[in-house]
C-alpha cells in the first residue's frame, strides 16, 4: 500500500510540476472564455448590421408597404419607374445591398420572383425575405377567397406545450433542448477524458520501458503496484486539472462583468430585439437547468469518469507495456481499445435522441461503453435499477480488466526488442501464474 502511494505521488508530482501542465490548465479555460467572448461580440455586432434592400414591385404585391418583423434590421425601399433590366445596373451604386424583383404574378402560381445581389445572400436573410413574400401572397389569397385577414389571425392557433416532470419534489418544467445539450456535453467530456488520460497512462508506461527503468523499479515494487500507482496518480492529475478549470471559470464569471460592465445588459438588449418567442431564452434555459437531476448528474459524472478511466487506463497500460519503442506499433495496438470508445460515442449520440431505446439501454449497461452512454442518458432520468446495474457492472468490469491487464503488464514491461501481437498478450493474460 505504502509503495503504491509512493509511486502515485511521483506520477502525480512529476506531471503537475511540469510547465506544460500549468500551460494547458490555464490556457484552456482562457481559450474557452475567449471563444465565448467572440460569440457574444459577433451576436451583438450582427444585430446592428442593417441592410438596404430595394424592392421593385410590378405586381404591387406589397401595396407599397412591407411589415418588417421584429428583429429584422433590413431596410426596404420601394423603387418606382424602373425595370428589372435597368435597375440591375445601378442598385449597387445607389447603396443597396440587394434588390428584390416582383413581376406580374399569377396569384395561384407565383413564379419569377427574383432577388438580385452582388454576392450570395445568407440563408437567414433569404428566409426572412421569403417569409415576407409568403405573408403578402397569403394575404392576397385570403382577399381573393373572401376571408378577412383579421378574422383569420384571430382563429389561427400557435400553441406551445409545457412538459413538466412530476417528481417527489413537486413539478418541474422540462426543457428538451437543455437535457439534450447537457447529456451530449457530458458524454463528449467523458469520451475526451478517456482518450486523453488513457493515452497519458500509455505514454507513461512506454516511457518506463523505453528508459529501461521498469526492471529497476519492479525489483522493489510489484508490477501491479507500479501499474495501479501510475493509473491513480494520472487520474489524480486529471481531477486536479478539472478542479482548477472549475475554479477558474467561476472566477472569470465573477470578473467578466467587472471588466466589461455593459456586456450582460447589451446581451439582454440584443435578445429582446429577437423575434418573439425567444425573448426569454435565458429564462427558459435557466428553468430547464433547474429541471435536470443536477445532483444525480454530478454524482454520475464523477462515478463514470472514475470507473471509465480506471478500466481504460488499465487497458492502455497493458498496451503500453507491450510496445517496445515504436510509436507506430503503439498505434496498431491501441486500435482495438479505441473501437469500444468510438462505438460508445456513436451509441451516445443515438441515446441523447432516444434515451430509452434498447441500444441505448444496452450501451449504458455494458462496462466498456457505459461511462459514455450513461452520461448521454442521465439527464433523462433513466430508471434507478438501470443506473445501479450499470454501476455494479462497471465496478465488476474494472476489477476484471485490471486483473487481466495486470498479467499482461507484468510480462510486457520486461520484454525487450520483440514485437508483441495481441495473440501473445492474450496468452500472457490467460496464463495461470
Amino acid at each position, binding site marked *: 500500500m505504502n509503495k503504491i502511494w509512493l509511486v502515485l505521488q511521483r506520477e502525480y508530482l512529476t506531471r503537475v510540476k511540469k510547465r506544460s501542465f500549468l500551460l494547458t490548465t490555464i490556457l484552456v479555460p482562457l481559450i474557452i472564455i475567449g471563444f465565448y467572448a467572440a460569440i457574444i461580440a459577433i451576436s451583438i455586432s450582427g444585430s446592428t448590421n442593417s441592410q438596404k434592400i430595394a424592392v421593385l414591385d410590378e405586381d404591387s404585391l406589397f401595396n407599397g408597404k412591407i411589415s418588417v418583423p421584429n428583429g429584422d434590421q433590413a431596410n426596404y425601399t420601394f423603387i418606382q419607374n424602373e425595370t428589372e433590366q435597368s435597375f440591375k445596373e445601378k442598385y449597387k451604386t445607389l447603396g443597396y445591398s440587394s434588390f428584390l424583383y416582383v413581376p406580374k404574378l399569377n396569384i395561384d402560381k407565383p413564379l419569377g420572383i427574383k432577388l438580385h445581389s452582388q454576392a450570395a445572400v445568407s440563408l437567414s436573410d433569404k428566409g426572412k425575405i421569403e417569409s415576407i413574400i409568403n405573408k403578402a401572397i397569403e394575404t392576397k389569397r385570403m382577399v381573393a377567397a373572401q376571408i378577412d385577414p383579421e378574422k383569420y389571425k384571430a382563429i389561427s392557433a400557435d400553441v406551445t406545450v409545457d412538459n413538466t416532470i412530476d417528481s417527489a419534489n413537486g413539478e418541474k418544467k422540462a426543457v428538451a433542448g437543455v437535457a439534450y445539450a447537457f447529456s451530449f456535453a457530458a458524454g463528449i467530456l467523458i469520451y475526451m477524458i478517456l482518450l486523453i488520460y488513457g493515452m497519458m497512462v500509455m505514454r507513461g508506461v512506454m516511457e518506463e520501458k523505453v*528508459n*529501461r*527503468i521498469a*526492471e529497476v523499479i*519492479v525489483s522493489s*515494487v510489484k508490477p501491479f503496484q507500479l501499474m495501479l500507482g501510475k493509473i491513480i496518480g494520472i487520474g489524480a492529475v486529471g481531477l486536479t486539472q478539472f478542479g482548477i478549470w472549475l475554479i477558474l471559470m467561476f472566477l472569470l464569471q465573477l470578473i467578466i462583468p467587472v471588466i466589461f460592465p455593459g456586456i450582460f445588459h447589451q446581451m439582454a438588449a440584443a435578445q429582446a430585439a429577437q423575434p418573439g418567442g425567444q425573448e426569454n431564452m435565458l429564462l427558459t434555459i435557466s428553468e430547464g437547468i433547474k429541471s435536470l437531476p443536477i445532483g444525480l448528474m454530478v454524482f454520475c459524472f464523477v462515478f463514470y469518469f472514475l470507473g471509465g478511466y480506471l478500466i481504460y487506463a488499465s487497458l492502455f497500460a497493458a498496451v503500453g507495456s507491450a510496445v517496445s519503442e515504436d510509436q507506430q506499433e503503439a498505434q496498431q495496438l491501441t486500435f482495438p481499445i479505441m473501437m469500444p470508445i468510438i462505438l460508445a460515442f456513436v451509441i451516445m449520440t443515438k441515446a441523447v435522441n432516444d434515451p430509452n431505446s434498447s441500444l441505448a439501454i444496452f450501451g449504458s449497461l455494458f462496462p466498456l461503453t457505459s461511462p459514455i452512454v450513461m452520461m448521454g442518458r442521465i439527464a433523462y432520468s433513466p430508471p434507478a435499477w438501470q443506473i445501479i446495474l450499470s454501476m455494479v457492472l462497471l465496478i465488476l468490469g474494472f476489477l476484471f480488466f485490471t486483473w487481466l491487464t495486470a498479467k499482461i503488464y507484468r510480462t510486457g514491461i520486461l520484454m525487450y526488442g520483440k514485437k508483441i501481437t495481441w495473440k501473445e498478450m492474450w496468452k500472457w493474460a490467460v496464463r495461470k501464474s
Partner: protein
Amino acid sequence: MNLLEVKNLKKYFATQKAVDDISFGLRKGSIFGLLGPNGAGKTTLIRMITGIFYPDEGEILLNGKTFDPINDVGQIGYMPEERGLYKKMKIGEQAVYLAQLKGLSKAEAVAKVKEWFIKFEMQSWWNKKVEDLSKGMGQKLQFVTTVLHEPKLIILDEPFSGLDPVNSNLIKDEINNLAKKGATIIFSTHRMEQVEEICDHIILVNKGKKILDGSVNEVKQQFKENLYSIGLEQIPVSFSSSHFEVIGKKDNSLVIKIGNGFRPNDVLQYFIQQNANVVSFNEMLPSLSDIFIKLVEGTPLARQFQSVTA
C-alpha cells in the same frame, strides 16, 4: 551460514527451459561471479532471486529463511543489464524516490543520497536531470541507487559497461569495500578478466544448467593442463625427455606439458643435468576465459528453442 541458498530452482517458459534445476550457495561477504553465454538463463535466474519472477519449482533461502519477495526487497539491491532512469526527473529526487521504494523513510533516504553523492563527488548533480548526464555518469548514479539502502545482497549485471577506467576502478573499489563490510555480491558479466580480478567464487551456467561451481582457484586447478613455462639462459640445441613435451618456444623460454606421473622437480632436474641455467619456472594456469570457451564451445552460439514438456 550462507546468506543465499538456491535449491533446485526451475523456471520453464513456453519455448525454453530458462533455468533448469540450478542450486548453489553464497557465503556472506563473498563476491560471486555468475557466468554464462548469452541466453544461458542468467537473467531469469537473477530475476527469480530478486523476486521479479516466481520460480516454477525450487526454493530460495535468504539468511536461512524462505525468500519473501514482498518484504525482503529492502535487503536486495539489483542493477539490471537493461537499466535506466527517469530522464526528466531531477537526479537527487530520483535517487531519493528509488531509496524510498526500497523501504527507507524520506529523511533517511535524503541523508543517504547526500552521503553517497559526496563520496562519489556528485553533489553538484542534485538538481540536474538525468538527460543531462553522460552515459558513464548515468551508470555511476545507477550504481549509487542500487547500493544506497545498504542491501545485504547486491546483484550487478554488467556493472562496468560504459564506464571509463577511472570510474571503473572507483566502482570496483566500492564493490570490494561493500563486500568487506559484509555485503554479498553477485556479479554477472562476460568480461572474464574482471571476474578473475574481483570474484572469489564463480558458477558457470549454460543452457539453463549449472556446469561449473567453485572458487576461482579451484576451478583453475580443475582445468589445469600441467602446463609450465620455463625460462632458460640458453636453450640446449637438442633435448628430449619422456618427462615432458614442448608445446611452444619463444626466445629463451619454453612452454612444456609435464607428462603423467611426473612432477615439476623431475623437469628441473633434467635441465640441471643438461647444464642449462634455469632463469624462471612458472605453472601456467588456464584463464577463466579459456575455461569458459572450452566448456561452452561446441554448444550452438545462439540457444535453440526447444519444446518444453513440464
